[in-house]
């Protein structure tokens, strides 16, 4: 199960809507081993594409170095699909490389840049196997 606070949940959706029709992507970091998504980092989609995303390689290194310095790990890795459902594609599955992370997918296909509900779903992707999990949105993460 993914437990995420409302502000972070809303910020991921806002990012996805803002970048529509291109895919948006980013990370929510948290203390190693805590499973707490605490610190949202919006990343630039270096592919700038409606069907593909990729973190810029230099920014990727900066991100990881910062997380290592802070004893953090990527708790959530998110991206949007802009014309299809919020389910991992074959590409998503093939390239998933953080077995400990929650892979969040948001679909902006219904409302694009406008207000309106979006699909927000979470998965574990380990060794090519996808397992959907429940998403619980809380006002604040409990200490």
């Amino acid at each position, binding site marked *: 199960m993914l437990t995420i606070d409302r502000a972070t949940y809303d910020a991921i959706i806002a990012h996805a809507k803002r970048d529509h029709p291109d895919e948006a992507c980013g990370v929510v970091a948290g203390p190693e081993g805590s499973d707490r998504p605490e610190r949202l980092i919006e990343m630039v989609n270096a592919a700038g594409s409606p*069907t593909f*995303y*990729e*973190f810029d390689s*230099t920014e990727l*290194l900066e991100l990881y170095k910062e997380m290592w310095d802070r004893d953090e790990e990527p708790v959530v890795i998110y991206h949007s699909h*802009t014309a299809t459902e919020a389910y991992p594609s074959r590409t998503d599955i093939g*390239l998933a*490389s953080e077995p400990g992370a929650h892979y969040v997918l948001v679909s902006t296909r219904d409302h694009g840049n406008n207000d309106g509900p979006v699909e927000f779903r979470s998965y574990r992707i380990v060794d090519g196997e996808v397992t959907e999990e429940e998403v619980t949105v809380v006002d604040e993460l409990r200490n």
Partner: protein
Amino acid sequence: MAIEVRIPTILRTYTGGEKAVTADGASLSALIDDLDANHPGIKERLIEGADLRRFVNVYVNDEDVRFIGGLEAELSDGDQVVVLPAVAGGAR
């Protein structure tokens, strides 16, 4: 010569869980061969044919090796090498 190589989570099955290992080599290609001698199978995950895999990033002292010669990038004692899988995907 000792070069520290930072190993990403997904490849730590090859290093017995170690986050970083040391290896030797005057070029990235030689370093990867040396890594593979001690951690068999890891080379396959980094290289495809004669090149680095498209979705594997390797940095030498914070420089993406694609900009400094790729597998021919020169290494010297004390260099720091980081391996990071790309974070990528998409609807297709």
